[in-house]
């Protein structure tokens, strides 16, 4: 068991290390001539006006929310999917109910207009 994790851990470390190393090497190789104009924020040639943090619309929240709900659904549905070959039709019906309830939530969001981008 732990071997799996060891490999995954090593892999994770290396896959983060490799780009980091590349960037570090490049940073060492590259020239450094900072300049206020260069380091200013890119804003189509204009000076930055106001704070960086502009207001976001709640749409983002709704998308993240629906995504969250569907994510949590996987906790329940993936074990069911794994056990799918071993369970009876009844279990399938239960899962269908589960899906139907979620679909209901999606439809609610839809009807409520929460899924519209504009």
């Amino acid at each position, binding site marked *: 068991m732990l071997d799996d994790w060891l490999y995954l851990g090593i892999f994770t470390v290396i896959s983060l290390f490799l780009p980091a190393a590349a960037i570090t090497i490049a940073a060492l190789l590259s020239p450094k001539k900072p300049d206020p104009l260069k*380091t200013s924020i890119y804003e189509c040639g204009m000076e930055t006006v106001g704070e960086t943090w502009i207001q976001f619309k709640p749409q983002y929240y709704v998308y*993240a929310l629906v995504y969250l709900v569907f994510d949590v659904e996987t906790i329940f549905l993936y074990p069911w999917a794994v056990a*799918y070959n071993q369970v009876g039709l009844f279990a399938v019906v239960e899962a269908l109910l589960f899906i139907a309830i979620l679909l209901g939530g999606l439809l609610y969001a*839809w009807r409520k207009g929460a899924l519209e981008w504009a």
Partner: protein
Amino acid sequence: MSFWIDPINFVIAWLKGLLESWGLQPGLVTFVMYLIGAFVTTLLAMLLVVFLIWLERKLIGRVQDRLGPNRLGPWGIFQTFADMLKIFTKEHITPDGADGVAYNLAPVISVGAVLMVWAVIPFTATVVGVDFNAGVLYLMAVGALGEMGVILAGWGSNNKYAMLAAFRAVAQLISYEVPMVLALMIPVMFTGSMSLQALVKEQDIWFIFLAPVAALIFFISSIAEVGRTPFDLVESESELVSGFNIEYSGLKFGMFYVADFLHAFTISLLFAALYLGGWRGPGAEQYPMLGFVYFALKTAVVYFIGILMRASLPRFRIDQMMDLNWKYLTPLALVLVAATAVAGKIVPAEMAGLRLVVMLALNGIIFAAADRLMTRRRSARRQVAQAPRPVAHYVQPAPTDPGD
């Protein structure tokens, strides 16, 4: 074990023997072997990008009736190396007020999140980094890390446009993960395991035939995850300068670029593994190296289709893209999971032929119905109100009077 049957494992066994002969502890041997394996895999993946960039430029050039890179080396194959050299030596500009850690971590995480996928991919019957029994979910979890990279980039740059773009990108990424998760559920259902190797081994019939619509959903949403045409709103090269990575320069920007190409290739790998039978093919069991070739070929085909799409399709508007996801793909995937679950119970796995037919028919019906609904919804929006039509039962159709 002969070199010619399974060269990779041959090399591994040889290395192992070598290390052990040096008198290292078995635990340390494993550690070193893992280190080497991981290093080789990731390095190969990174180097592959160099080739991919060239390939893609060349192919798109051909599609657009251009030559593409053609100066350096045969067919311009060294063009990318030159580009690499250039980008390596470019200055790293850190914008004012950037959040140092977040700003520098973002490109690393972006690449790392893609590379980490390679840990669980079964390349042949015998070569797989780790046959992880939650592999499918691991893919999704790693995708979640990619999102963090985007957020970090957007937030770290201290630029409001980068921030906005990052959030648009995150909205896109998370949205398309929903149908992806659901589409992946269907192979898992057929297999009864979340391990990718098990998924490949289960594919006596490729899952693209058992679940074509799921494959389509997976393909579409993985392209959206990569953010390539027609979902390249994150970059919108022709309209914006760039997206969340606007404040990056030098190799830090290059890393986002690498991540993009690598991701595109990785999803082709995944598609080939999940729906096209992975390394499976005639003789792949006996000669694992043959499986590697099959896998590479299948991946190449998928990748090629991706490039063709990139070269030929126009870009979605963001509301269209969101509509496509939430109002089409997600409900479709949900219905598909439900329908497949029921059909799979009615036609047991033993009757493979019948199951194939039933599944194909089911997918066809669902897809046709979904398509029809989609078309109707669209045309309903456009439809001008019409006068009520007379009823056939009581009213005979009036004979056309030529004098009228």
